[in-house]
């Protein structure tokens, strides 16, 4: 089943002479096991697309379906529940709560969703183990490196049964090795059956995606998918 579908999505910010078209008719389908990267210059609509996909913003016209349900038809309460249960967000700005430990940060969405503290902690610890940080569960964000904090943010985005993971420049200012480990985690989650959308301006990160779409002025202008014979490509390109 398709996890995310955008149908003819338009989004205009402002009205009249100052109106800015952020998206101008975007169609997109993301299936389970698929990571789609979105590239484009500043102001091309990348972040708007991600916010609309995650129910954080509404299209001016068009529709957004997550696991077959139109986000526009949901009440505020149902939309909030869907965001907590089905969608994971990883942003450059980590948004970790500094007064909570790593495991408490990861458990928070589960507790908000009605899980007992004990059960939420157990699931959160499992998520921290997945990102390689089980021993830092009881540390506060300020006592962790940037890379460790980003891993906690990823664990929080992936905890529970999230089927859709949305990432906006998730590697931020991390060094290239740490950034790559973040991409590997995202890739692993998608390979395990989630659907992912990754907004990035770094082509090296887009390389982890199954499909790369290029946005320009709110329109998808091109799509790149991998070739079939990587080894042949290497031999031809790399031979001197």
């Amino acid at each position, binding site marked *: 089943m398709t996890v995310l579908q955008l149908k003819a999505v338009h989004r205009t910010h402002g009205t009249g002479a100052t109106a800015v078209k952020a998206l101008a008719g975007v169609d997109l389908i993301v299936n389970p096991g698929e990571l789609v990267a979105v*590239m484009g*210059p500043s102001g091309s609509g990348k972040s708007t697309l991600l916010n609309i996909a995650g129910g954080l913003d509404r299209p001016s016209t068009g529709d957004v379906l997550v696991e077959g349900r139109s986000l526009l038809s949901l009440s505020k309460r149902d939309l909030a529940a869907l965001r907590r249960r089905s969608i994971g967000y990883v942003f450059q700005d980590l948004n970790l709560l500094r007064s909570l430990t790593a495991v408490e940060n990861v458990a928070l969405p589960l507790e908000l969703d009605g899980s007992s503290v004990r059960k939420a902690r157990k699931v959160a610890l499992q998520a921290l183990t997945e990102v390689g940080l089980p021993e830092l569960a009881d540390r506060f964000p300020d006592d962790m490196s940037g890379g460790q904090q980003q891993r906690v943010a990823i664990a929080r985005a992936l905890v529970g049964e999230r089927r859709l993971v949305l990432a906006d420049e998730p590697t931020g200012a991390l060094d290239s090795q740490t950034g790559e480990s973040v991409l*590997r985690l995202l*890739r692993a989650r998608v390979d395990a059956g989630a659907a992912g959308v990754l907004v990035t*301006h*770094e*082509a*090296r990160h*887009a*390389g*982890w*995606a*199954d499909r*790369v779409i*290029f946005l320009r002025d709110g329109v998808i*202008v*091109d*799509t*790149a*998918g*991998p*070739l079939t014979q*990587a*080894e042949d*490509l*290497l*031999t031809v*390109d*790399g*031979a*001197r």
Partner: protein
Amino acid sequence: MSIKHGLLALLERGPMYGYQLRTAFEESTGGTWPLNIGQVYTTLGRLERDDLVRALPENDGGQRSYEITPAGRAELTMWFATPVSRTDRPRDELAIKLALAITTRGVDVRAVLQSQRSATVRTMQEYTRLKASANDAADLSWRLVIDAMLFQAEAEVRWLDHCETALIRATPPDLPYPPAPTADNPAAAPLPTERAHQS
């Protein structure tokens, strides 16, 4: 880089014969630089002539191993110590193509840029897929070769982005793509660079 220095580096590990050298060379470059056995023997012949390697007696299987000489080791040390000069690399066809696209009437430069960007990103997806499949510490040299290709490709994409931004700034928003000139009006398509100079 020359095959000569590659073989010297491999012989620094210990004596090897031709097929072993070929296999080791391809393994350490992740198969990105295939060699034929003829190239290996030709190069070994030159290295021996220049006293950089020495042929050992044939083994029972009729294979002749080579070992590195002190002069070969000095040559290898010098090679590692000398940075690769950018001017020694082949001219960049893409940069030349873009320069010509901008100064040739009727060419949709943004389409040329996007077509290249898409192709390069596609290549990067492939490199990344290969890298993701090589995860052992034993594969470090191979992963670093792939990383070199990824970083070079990334630099190309960043440069393409830079070109596009420069192009947009040089072109009035009402004329993003210069139309092809017609026979009636050969000057109908002022080039982006010309427009920039006029304004």
